[in-house]
Structures are given as structure tokens and as C-alpha cells.
């Protein structure tokens, strides 16, 4: 098993944390993992991109040439990275901010993550909504795996944020169930 995920959004949309939670869950499950933030001299509102590889075998190159999954939070990132998806790959788009083209064989899920997060009362958890959606589709890890990692990230002063993150994760999972229902 090898899963190559490219995560992209603008700085502040929490792609770094999303990938980190997946990477830590992979580590906790004794899988191989590489997580590479490929940042340039970025500007606010521009794009931040992360390459995450999870595998049952040793991972050589951490740079993804062709992604199994693309998780994209805003339009500039979509324009920049859409071509990196493999022909029968999976795309998760934050439909609150991304308008997409048609890819004949790519499975596309449009999740209004920004809207869902705003309704929950904190736009910052839009990344966790996407994470919930991703988990439901790919089933690499359980929600408990991720909540374990979240509670490590949100210890101490940030402890109060755990509840809303948990809600966001559930909303993301429900969003996918409503597609398949």
C-alpha cells in the first residue's frame, strides 16, 4: 500500500496541520511516512503545498510526481496543482472556494468546507472538515486514530478547541455519507 497525497491551500487554511495529523497517525500505526512542506517565498493568500506519502514499504523520494489524492482548499492552489493528479485519482475540493473543471476518470468530491466550518462557529476548522471527508473515503485511519493525534496537538492552552475540531471531523464524514446515500 502506498498513498501519495498533495495538500494545498493558502497559508492559514491549516493544510500543514491536516497533513501532520495524517503523518502522525501513520507513524502511530507503524507505517512509513514522509511529509514535505514545499514552501517557496510565498505571499499571504497565495499557495502552500505539502507532499505526504504513506506506505507499507520504505519511501524513497518524498517528492510526489503523481498524486493518488489531491486535497485543495482554494482556487490558486487548484490551478497550480490540478495536473499532478493521476488519471484515476481522487480529488477533494473545498467547493466554497474552488470551481473545478471536468476530469473524465478522476473521482471528485466537492465539500463546502469553509461554509461548514463557519456554521460551526470557527472558519479555522475547515481543514478538519476536509480531513473527516478524506478519512471516510480512503479509510486509512479511524476517526479515533485522528482524535488521538488531535488531542496531542491541542493539549494545554488549546484544549478547549478539541470539541469543535471533533464536530468538524464528524461534519466532514457526514458530507461524504450524503454523497453516497
Amino acid at each position, binding site marked *: 500500500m502506498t498513498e501519495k497525497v498533495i495538500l494545498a491551500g493558502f497559508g492559514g487554511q491549516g493544510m500543514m496541520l491536516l497533513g*501532520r495529523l495524517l*503523518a*502522525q497517525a501513520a*507513524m502511530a500505526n507503524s507505517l512509513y*511516512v*514522509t*511529509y*514535505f*512542506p514545499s*514552501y*517557496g*517565498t510565498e505571499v499571504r493568500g497565495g499557495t502552500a503545498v505539502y507532499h505526504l506519502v504513506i506506505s507499507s514499504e520504505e519511501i*524513497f*523520494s*518524498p*517528492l510526489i*510526481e*503523481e498524486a493518488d489524492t489531491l486535497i485543495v482548499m482554494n482556487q490558486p492552489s487548484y490551478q497550480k496543482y490540478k495536473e499532478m493528479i493521476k488519471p484515476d485519482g481522487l480529488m477533494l475540493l473545498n467547493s466554497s472556494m474552488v470551481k473545478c473543471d471536468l476530469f473524465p476518470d478522476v473521482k471528485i468530491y466537492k465539500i463546502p468546507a469553509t461554509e461548514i466550518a463557519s456554521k460551526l462557529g470557527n472558519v479555522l476548522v475547515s481543514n478538519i472538515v476536509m480531513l473527516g471527508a478524506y478519512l471516510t473515503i480512503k479509510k486509512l485511519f479511524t476517526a479515533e486514530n485522528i482524535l488521538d493525534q488531535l488531542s496531542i496537538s491541542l493539549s494545554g492552552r488549546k484544549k478547549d478547541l478539541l470539541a469543535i475540531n471533533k464536530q468538524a471531523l464528524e461534519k466532514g464524514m457526514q458530507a461524504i455519507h450524503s454523497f453516497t446515500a
Partner: protein
Amino acid sequence: MKQLLTGNEAAAEAAIYAGCRYYYGYPITPQNELINYMSVRMPQVKGTFIQAESEIAAINMVYGSAAAGGRTMTSSSSPGISLKQEGISYLAGSELPCVIVNIQRGGPGLGDISASQADYFQSVKGGGHGDYRVIVLAPSSVQEMADLVYDAFDLADKYRNPVLILGDAQIGQLMEPVEFKKEFRENLPQKEWALTGAKNRNRKIIKSFYPVKGELEVFNAKLQNKYKEIEKNEVRYEAVNIHKADVILVAYGTSARICKEVVRKSHQFKFRIGLIRPISLWPFPSEFIREMSERARCMLTVEMSAGQMLEDVRLAVEGRCPVHFYGRTGGGVPTSLEIIKKIVEIMPKNRAAKTLLQFAEVK
């Protein structure tokens, strides 16, 4: 216990494990996670952390701590490492142990902040003035970064010589699980040559200045003997799939990881590609490469530069087999597909290579 750390953070933590308690740095991307980590961690272990006023100040602070016998480190990225070269020459000339981390970025000049391997010449040929060498170790994973930084402190003390860790933006910022398995060192024994105050004992001298005619030549001979010892004892490399290989790739650090991907892809086509990954760039594994060049049909050096280590490979091979080159510059990272294309170009009649290319292109 495994932790998910960047290469930069792993380098910092490994230094602390190795007993480094004096760190001096100046911020520069892509090594900022290292200095940031040190600023938090050093006070916790009652060490000294100074964000110096410049790279030059930082390397000279290293000189001071090293002369007083402490385990000490500085880190920077390419433009900053250029600034430190005078200090490194003085450290080598004064036979002072220390560890310097270079997380290379694109050059020349201010260049850019993405991964590069274009500081190879500067690192292994002596970037400053004078006939000196620094031991150069090149990690290709976060775990190896931790292991090599730890060993670097022992090597530095063993030979009273600076050791350079040569990484790049990718290794520095990449996050991987890492484990610190070696002993956590504290209260290391005092070095007998260290300057600790001459009360009740004869004075000791640490210097790189030998103005009396003839003295400097004697000192240089001593240095050269030491370097010969290092060349004899400290060569490190990894050989992958080397047995009966038609093509041997030679690459270090980040480039070597991509080459391993190529080796893995080649397996299913019974195409025999091997890889020699130098871990110590100086001393260079010349002897092993020479030995292998008698068996392989050709070698291909892959670097993120315009061809620097290539020269050392050719010197080792001495014409026994052709040595080809594929490189990317200015922050470009080679892809496995590009390397396979290059192999087909140098071996146009090899059917397995062509099949491999077709497979790679379709995929």
C-alpha cells in the same frame, strides 16, 4: 519512541544528545527550524544559545567555545556558510573540533531557498584558504541526519577537526519519524588541550599562526598525516543492488533517494541498476568506486548541481568505464523519470532500459 521531526529539528536534537551545549546561529531559510529548535531546547539543558549578530560572529563564537573544550555547533544555509569560511579555515588551522551544518539552497549569490547540492566543491575541497580538510557527512533521511550529527561530534573530537553536515532544503524541511537511540551525553570529560585557565598549571596555546620560518611547514605535514588517517578510517558509503549491475548510479543525499526509486522500478524489468551512495563526501569512497568501475558497464552521477561530485567519481574511476552525468540546478530536483530517460540515452541498445522507460512514462 519515534517522533515526527524535520531534518533540521532532528539535527538539533541529535546535537543535544551528543552533548553539544554551545550553539551559535543566525537565521536563514531553509535551516530556520534548527535555530528555532535550539532556542527552545538549549535553555532546557542549561546550554548556551546565542542568535549572533551575523554568521561570521557565530562561527567565531564556535571557535571560542571549541578552544575552551565544549562541544559546539553552528548551522546555516549556503550564502551564510560562505560567510563562515574564514572561521572554518581558522578552526581547521587551530585543530579545533566543532560541527557545522549546511542546509544547502540554490546559488550562486543569494540564489533561492529551494534544495540544491551546489556547495559540494566548497565543502569537500576546502572552502576557505590553506591546505585543510573538513570531514563532510551527507545524510539522505531524517533518521540519518540524527545519526550523523551525533557521530559528527565524536569524529570532531577524535581528530580535533571541524565536521560539516551537508544537507539540503529538502532534507532540512522534510518530516519523517526519527528515534534517538544513542546515549544522552552530559558532563563529558575535559579535553586535555582545552583552554580552561592556567592557574596552577603550564599554559596551553591554541593558534593557527606560525610566523617562524619552517614551523608552518612542519605543522602542515602534521595536518596532512591526520587527513591520511581520516581517509583510511572514516570512509562511509551505502551500496544498493551493486552485484552484477550494468549501470551504477552514484548520488548522495536527496538525489540518492530518487536514485533508489529508479533502482526499485528497474527490478521488475530485470534491468540491473545499482547505486553507490557516498555518506562521507570527504573522505570520499574512491577506492570502492574504483573497484566497482571495473565491473560495471558505465556509471551515472546524479546531482542537484551542474556536476561537482562527478569530478571525484571520474578521478576514482580513472577512465576504467564511462562516467555520465545528470543534474538539475537552481532548486530543481531530478525526477525518477528524468533519470530513467538519461539511462536510455546512455544505453540506447539496452532493451530492459527501454521497457523501463515505457513503463515509467505510461505511469
